[in-house]
């Protein structure tokens, strides 16, 4: 009779471990569940299908290059070795590589980063800045070779011959490209002299454009104090950089068109303002001239007339006075009075003329100060009596039912006196 061999737990575990370790370099497909990222950087989860579950460990040194985020429910394919953890007696897959199933890995990473940055508000429309119309200095971050920079420069120079462009040459694909682009954006910001940046590259595959889908580029664009125009690939290619940029141009040439207005258009626009500015005043110049003429001729005449009326009244009053009843006694008094009136009138007229002269001088000065573009007054109107079109200087010149024409700066109306 053979005595059964008794094994210790460690012994049997060691034997089982040996068997299990034969599952080396296996590919396993399954759904992730109970995913726990540990603060140490290690990741623990289960892989399952309809019938079974297997524990999995994805250690830090293996998972640090993972391009996407693991989530429960995700279908994945893992590569690794099956091992037994003696302390718990559990077997598990030690994963050394993982790929998403179905969706390509880059696509998945793109979607995940897009989702994350969107949540963080990096794509918010509200933070998108307006581009300057007339940037003094334009920064272009792209490869110094190839069609992109050529297209951009051609368009920029065609639109605005005297332009200041600085190219920051960067690698636009391959290892380190994203970091170079991000660094360039930072550099241009630190420089402080740029008004707008174009960041881009030509078309290519998702892999070729990848640098512009990297988080580091997205963050650099987001942090940029200078408005950024993205111009990556062709019209149909959308990158993360496009979502974060202040403006997305469908192509590099389009980016160049967006960053600077056409100089000829601007010149025309300014000229149009000049025409409006002067036309408006010039159109009213005639009215102003009429006002001046009115003051020169009629205003002065009216002033004199009024003074003469006062004088006449005084004379007629004087005629009724006792001086005429007793001429001999009062004649000299009257003469003296007339002399006084005369000198008063002379002074009054003198003052009047002086005042009118000053007024005219002021008005003339205003007109002349704005020559040669001619000026215009505002807020005055001229009333003419119809049908003879006589300029009306006093309300007393009009009576009920008279027809008048009133000239305003920008038109005339006809009216009747009530």
């Amino acid at each position, binding site marked *: 009779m053979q005595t059964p061999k008794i094994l210790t737990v460690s012994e049997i575990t060691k034997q089982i471990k040996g068997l299990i370790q034969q599952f080396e370099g296996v590919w396993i497909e399954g759904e992730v569940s109970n995913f726990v990222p540990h603060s140490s950087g290690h990741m623990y989860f289960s892989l399952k299908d309809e019938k079974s579950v297997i524990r999995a460990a994805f250690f830090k040194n293996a998972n640090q290059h993972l391009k996407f985020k693991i989530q429960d429910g995700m279908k994945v394919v893992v590569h690794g070795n099956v091992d037994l953890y003696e302390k718990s007696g559990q077997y598990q897959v030690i994963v050394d590589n993982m790929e998403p199933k179905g969706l390509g890995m880059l696509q998945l990473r793109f979607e995940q980063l897009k989702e994350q940055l969107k949540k963080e508000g990096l794509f918010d429309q509200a933070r998108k800045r307006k581009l300057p119309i*007339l940037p003094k200095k334009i920064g272009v971050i792209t490869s110094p070779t190839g069609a992109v920079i050529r297209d951009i420069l051609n368009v920029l120079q065609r639109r605005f011959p005297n332009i*200041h462009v600085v190219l920051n040459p960067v690698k636009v694909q391959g290892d380190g490209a994203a970091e170079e682009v991000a660094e360039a954006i930072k550099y241009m910001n630190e420089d402080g002299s740029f008004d707008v940046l174009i960041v881009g590259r030509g078309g290519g595959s998702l892999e070729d454009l990848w640098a512009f889908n990297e988080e580091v580029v997205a963050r650099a664009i987001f942090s940029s104090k200078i408005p950024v125009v993205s111009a990556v690939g062709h019209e149909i290619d959308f990158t993360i950089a496009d979502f974060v940029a202040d403006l997305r141009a469908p192509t590099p040439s389009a980016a160049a068109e967006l960053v600077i207005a056409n100089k000829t258009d601007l010149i025309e626009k300014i000229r149009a*303002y000049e025409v409006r500015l002067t036309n408006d005043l010039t159109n009213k110049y005639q009215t102003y001239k009429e006002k001046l003429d009115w003051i020169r001729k009629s205003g002065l005449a009216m002033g004199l007339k009024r003074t003469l009326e006062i004088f006449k009244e005084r004379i007629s009053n004087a005629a009724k006075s006792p001086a005429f009843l007793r001429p001999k006694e009062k004649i000299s008094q009257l003469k003296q009075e007339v002399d006084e009136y005369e000198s008063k009138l002379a002074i009054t007229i003198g003052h009047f003329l002086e005042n009118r002269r000053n007024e005219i001088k002021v008005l003339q000065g205003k007109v002349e100060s704005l020559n040669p573009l001619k000026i215009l007054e505002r807020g005055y109107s001229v009333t003419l009596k119809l049908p003879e079109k006589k300029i009306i200087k006093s309300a007393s010149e009009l009576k009920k039912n008279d027809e008048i024409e009133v000239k305003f700066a920008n038109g005339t109306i006809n009216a009747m006196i009530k």
Partner: protein
Amino acid sequence: MSDKEMKFEVALTKLEEIVDKLESGDIGLDDSLKHYEDGMKLLKFCTAKLDEVEKKIEILVKDKGGKVTGTKTFKNDEDSDKLL
């Protein structure tokens, strides 16, 4: 307003406001003249701005570590190999 600090687009907007105000015709003579003078200043400013920038196409020069060491003129048709 300081001409040095003012941006072209700000000047253009101000100019538009002035023209609109003048054309609305409901301001007094003194204001009108003032606006006109301001408008002419802005016009001069905008026109000057258009020619202010000198044409310059440059490329940053970097050392092997990627650090910018200076700038030089960038020729559009320059042999691409020389630039790398």
